């Protein structure tokens, strides 16, 4: 594992209902078990209702960090939905940030009502190139649906994140936390989703 910047700033973003809050909590608990200070700032008051959701996860060996990442100071962004990656980078991005993007859009109602436009994937990719150091695209929702449920896309994305060894956390550490949380069946499904993510990152194109 690389020497980790302190504090290390991870953002998990997506749309309400994608499992964002649980994901950040599981990552956070695993890091606390490893002796880190972790602060998570979550925006989820209205998250069940189709809103944009963002969790700031701040990792430090030294001390408890504030719950919100300063402007332009994210180190890695996991986006469970494509345009949400742009929303986050516009405020917290920088030329070094690493971004993992689930490619499946969830359309806001203003888009389906044709009051607003959802950008084309190629335009999203172009913008992401300008705003980050490295981007990985993962068809997490498609893989999750093949596995039986779209909700697994968050575990696929975490599997991909862990494989990149950016945060001081191994897949094995993370599975220990899952084991304490889920029953045997739930654990197996989640572990195989992590594995899908691990495989996906090796194939994912990045720019």
């Amino acid at each position, binding site marked *: 594992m690389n020497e980790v910047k302190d504090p290390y700033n991870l953002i998990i973003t997506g749309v309400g209902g994608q499992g964002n809050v649980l994901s950040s909590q599981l990552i956070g608990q695993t890091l606390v078990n490893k002796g880190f200070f*972790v602060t998570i700032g979550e925006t989820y008051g209205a998250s069940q*209702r189709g809103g944009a959701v963002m969790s700031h996860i701040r990792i430090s060996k030294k001390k408890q960090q504030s*719950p919100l990442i300063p402007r332009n100071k994210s180190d890695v962004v996991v986006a469970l939905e494509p345009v949400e990656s742009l929303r986050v980078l516009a405020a917290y991005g920088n030329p070094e940030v690493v971004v993992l993007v689930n490619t499946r859009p969830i359309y806001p109602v203003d888009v389906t*009502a044709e009051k607003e436009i959802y950008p084309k994937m190629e335009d999203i990719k172009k913008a992401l190139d300008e*705003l980050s150091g490295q981007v990985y695209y993962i068809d997490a929702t498609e893989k999750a649906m093949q596995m039986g449920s779209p909700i697994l896309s968050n575990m696929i994305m975490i599997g991909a994140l862990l494989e990149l060894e950016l945060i001081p956390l191994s897949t094995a550490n993370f599975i220990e936390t899952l084991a304490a949380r889920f029953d045997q069946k739930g654990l197996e499904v989640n572990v195989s989703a992590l594995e899908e993510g691990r495989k996906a990152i090796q194939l994912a194109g990045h720019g």
Partner: protein
Amino acid sequence: MSIISLNEPDKELLLMGNEAMARGALEAGVSVAAAYPGTPSSEIIASLAEAAEDMGIYVEWSVNEKVALEVAAAASFSGLRAICAMKQNGLNVASDFLLNLNLIGTQAGLLLVVCDDPSSHSSSNEQDSRLFSKMADLPLLEPATFQEAKEMVKWAFTLSESIENVCMMRGVTRISHARGNVILGELPRRKARPYFNKEKQRVTHPVNQKHPLLHESLDRLREIFNGSPFNQYAGPEKAELIIMTCGSGWLYAQEAVELTGLDDMVGILKIGTTWPLPEKLILEYLKRTEKVLFVEEVDPFLEGNVKELAADFMRQIGPKTFFGKKSHHIPFFGEMNSDRVVDALTQIFDMEYTFATPAYEASAKKAEMMVPNRVLGFCPGCPHRASLWSIKSALELDDREGFVTGDIGCYALARNTAGYELSKTSGAMGTGTGLASGFGKLSRFGFSQPIISLCGDSTFFHAALPALTNAHFNNSNFIMVILDNSATAMTGFQPHPGVGINAMGETVLPVEIEGVCQALEAKVEVTDPFDLEGTRQKLLDMLEGPGGAKVLIMRRKCALLRLKEEKPPYRMHIDAELCLGKDCGCNRFCTRTFKCPGLIVDQETGKAKIDEVICVGCGLCAEICPTGAIVREETA
């Protein structure tokens, strides 16, 4: 086993601020906890409810915040430690009792936690509840970290007992709803036995004696607070500037000083006991610097109080320059973050600080423009969408410029496009019915617009019932629609009196909403909102019918709860032959007007499409498509 009742002292956990507070209460040996749910406070009592059985404590969801405080006070009067929690708006409801309870006094420790919501992430306002502590002459603590949230709660009970009065604590969204490291302490084993001493009357009188006593206890508190470890300074001995901060502001202030590299010049005085102020301590630090910056969330509470103190001791401390909200170095609204403190510091020290290069900023701006707005909407399968759809069609057919008075809950979204912008008013809990009761009396002046008020099932018990009673008593004319989804859905599905189960998990006889309304002799009908035609017809009949307050209960369980209990009833698809896309005269009725997020437009064919990731198979949209192109197949 609930996470907060884990009996493993010294274990380190990642806890939400609210869970940390709940744990602190358990470590302090709390016996009774009561609240009405409200974001961002709900998890304090929710996690105590989960621990209730393990810990042998009593926890309740009360019908409103005032009753919750009364329940907690009864425990305190009987010698049992009690905690009561609420959101900022809730304190307004409870304040009537609070401003008497302060004179009455308490016996066993009584902690009132109020969680404010700066930036109003999940609230109708961003009021600063701290002003109530000053108004009520009660001590106020503000935790700055998650660990401190737990420790302060523990201490608050002792403090409350030492002054025999309520201790207040203020949480904010970024403490209550954020997560961080918490090291567990010991859990006590023995509980006190309750006994109410009849020798001592618990009343406010004689006020002329009790009010001065309150002020004496403030003097005692100042002394205690001067030595409190929750107040601490870090920084140079003689500072160019001292940041005085409290609550969430502390971590942001530290980060901003690090980011700007001003560590050698700027010190930070963190105040955990914000009312009454630890005056000696603050004066000591005021002497050490000429400049002070205040960092706190919402109102300039600390700022104003410190300035008042500085005015009293001007000769001893010398002239100062104060920066904060009043000087516009810190914005007057919205939550705090380190960037805001960085901005203030760079202005005061007249220094350069770049967040990003201009080129990066330009790309970021461009990206921001591309990102579509994500307005909040009702969940797929939500009964409120159907209810509001029927109200919308009924009011259009009625054609007398009728309108809706809205209320607090998920259905507050009735003011947005998701709810067809039907709600034209919204205020406090129960305000929809109260306003309707007023509008319904204006006919003598020639007012002829029909009124439909909205109210949730939990809101009905909380605050709408007196308004409905008022309407009956004064013979006001309107339709009260009760959107009964069998839960306090907005705040996390807490049960309420209509549900038949309480916070302790006991089965209780549900209070039947229709029975209560009938007892008021209101005309009551019940409908399933998914029966669009039947619901609309009932509304039309009520709109035409004779006067008085009429109640229509639209009853269907919250879709999120339903999904936990049963499989989706239908699999939905679009019959591509029947959907005419944009050539259809419907003008894309399903996506443009009905607006369930499960319905999208296929970019290639231009026809409607079901987003199978979103759709929960409720089947309702099949009824609204004029060509019958939306098809539901029953799931096995």
